[in-house]
């Protein structure tokens, strides 16, 4: 079953901090701002203190996408091309200088840090996965979310795609729009929301938009266009 319903969505980028702002953006999409992050005041202070910009962005979108009573019930999939790489690079520099690392910083730079902090803040004990897939990270994260619906068809899956601008040392090595953002989707087999069929075709390539794939998906979701292609990955309304 490659069909799922998008029951809710939420997104955050610098200057695009409300659903109304995103509805205006999808009518006239433009590159997203590269730097900025929200406070994420809904997080307990103890946890928030240790949250990186990426974590604050990802969890702000996550919290906006799930009703409070369901925060602890959903399965979660977090996708990010770069994850905590900016913080990892700081630590790699320390390693090269033979300096001691901060144990807290080390444990908070695992790729599943956003997922783990979500689970802690939401007291969520459901399955959770984190992934990366270079240019195809958004589509592959969506597909991984579908695998969780396959494993447990009755559940809802919260899918969060988030990234921040890459540190300058590596930014020149990566050809993509530099943005700080998160898009969250609440996916289920049943319920109120558009039913989308997902497909993969190994032969087609589409040009890269000037904003992240997740933003392009959101633009399409809120439009009346029938189909969306991002690289080899395709969505169609059922």
């Amino acid at each position: 079953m490659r069909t799922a319903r998008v029951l809710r969505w939420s997104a955050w980028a610098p200057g695009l901090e409300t659903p109304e702002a995103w509805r205006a953006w999808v009518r006239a999409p433009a590159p997203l701002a590269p730097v900025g992050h929200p406070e994420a005041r809904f997080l307990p202070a103890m946890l928030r203190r240790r949250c990186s910009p990426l974590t604050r962005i990802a969890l702000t979108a996550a919290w906006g996408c799930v009703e409070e009573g369901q925060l602890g019930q959903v399965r979660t999939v977090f996708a990010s091309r770069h994850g905590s790489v900016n913080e990892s690079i700081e630590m790699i520099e320390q390693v090269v200088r033979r300096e001691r690392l901060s144990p807290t910083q080390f444990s908070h730079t695992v790729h599943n840090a956003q997922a783990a902090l979500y689970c802690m803040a939401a007291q969520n004990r459901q399955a959770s996965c984190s992934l990366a897939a270079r240019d195809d990270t958004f589509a592959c994260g969506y597909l991984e979310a579908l695998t969780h619906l396959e494993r447990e068809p009755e559940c809802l899956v919260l899918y969060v795609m988030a990234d921040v601008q890459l540190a300058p040392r590596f930014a020149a090595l990566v050809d993509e729009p530099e943005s700080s953002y998160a898009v969250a989707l609440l996916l289920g087999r049943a319920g109120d929301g558009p039913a989308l069929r997902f497909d993969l075709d190994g032969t087609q390539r589409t040009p890269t938009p000037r904003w992240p794939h997740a933003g392009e998906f959101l633009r399409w979701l809120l439009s009346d266009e029938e189909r969306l292609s991002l690289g080899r990955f395709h969505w169609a309304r059922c």
Partner: protein
Amino acid sequence: MPNHSPCRLSALGIVNALGVGAGEVWPRLLDGEPSRLVDRDDLAPERRLRVGAVDAPLPRIPERLAAYDCRNNAMALSAIEQIEEPLARALRERGAERVGVVMGTSTSGVSDAEEAIRHEFHAGRLAPKFDYAQLEFGGLASFVADYLGVRGPVYSLSTACSSGARALASARSLLALGVCDAVVAGAADTLCGLTASGFSALSAICEGTTNPCSRNRAGLSLGEGAAVFLVQPGHGGVQLLGVGESSEAHHMSAPEPSGAGPEASMRGALADAGLPPEAIAYLNLHGTGTPLNDKMECLAVERVFGSELPVSSTKPLVGHTLGASGAIEAAFCWLVLDRSEAGVLSLPPHWWDGERDPEIPPLHLVQKGESALLRSAPRVMTNSFGFGGNNCTLVLGRSL
């Protein structure tokens, strides 16, 4: 009854401190001696660490894939090369678009990024051979796909030390979704300064060899390696029968002390496989040798299985291979099943100093030379628990 269609782990490539390939790994796994671990003082500042390093030369990354040329990808390639023939056949028969790649990793090419930045400190720019594709997590799966010519879905999972187990779980679901007809799934991780210094900073690494479940246990020994499977639909051979998953919602680096999370993932895997606890003949523990892990894991195992199930931690033999450990320990279970004969399973022994911890329930730790006599089809289980409280348990089995 299992609630999913049959899923076969039909070929295995493996590399770690025990050797390259199942032929080297299997007898040394049963021998159960940690003599292949080595002492290294280049990994963490002012510390000599005993680690499970791969000393065999790794294959060269082909020139056309030079952007991916890092030790972690060479580690994966070492495993891939062992099963190149069945992988090529699957690609030919199924079509490149119908084959996927799901790989787990927690380090990706960090060891090469360390080299690149060391070069920058001396020479003012990153080492010329460095490419971001070596460092980003997605690079591992992309390398495997580009090497093999795979054109289906390609992604890397990274949930710390449960990554490798999750890759097999996702592979099974990709088959069930009808997105793929075959998936290359596994994991690779490499020794590096970052993980050695990080786990040292957390006081999680012991002096000498890790000593799981002992009252004297004092932490883990690091390791490196890779395991890769060809995952296909259908009956026969070694099957992935069950997947269980849970999150702990507790702490970034410490497990919740009651073991409720591992208990949920083990019970979930049994339910997914449609099996009662008595059906399991052997459990490969996560068994890191840290004071907290072994205590909570053994409590959970005892609640699910009682104290008679043969269990062992194989981490004293290969070190904790972090994101690769879930795939490598699934591979050890695969070997136990694949090499079973006439209803007898030879089991990997649990190496330790033999001093029981009064706070740990007295589980049946496998002794050297021990085997299990089977009355029914063999089924075995493996546990993987990651930072952030990310747990994954797999059940593997084969018919008699």
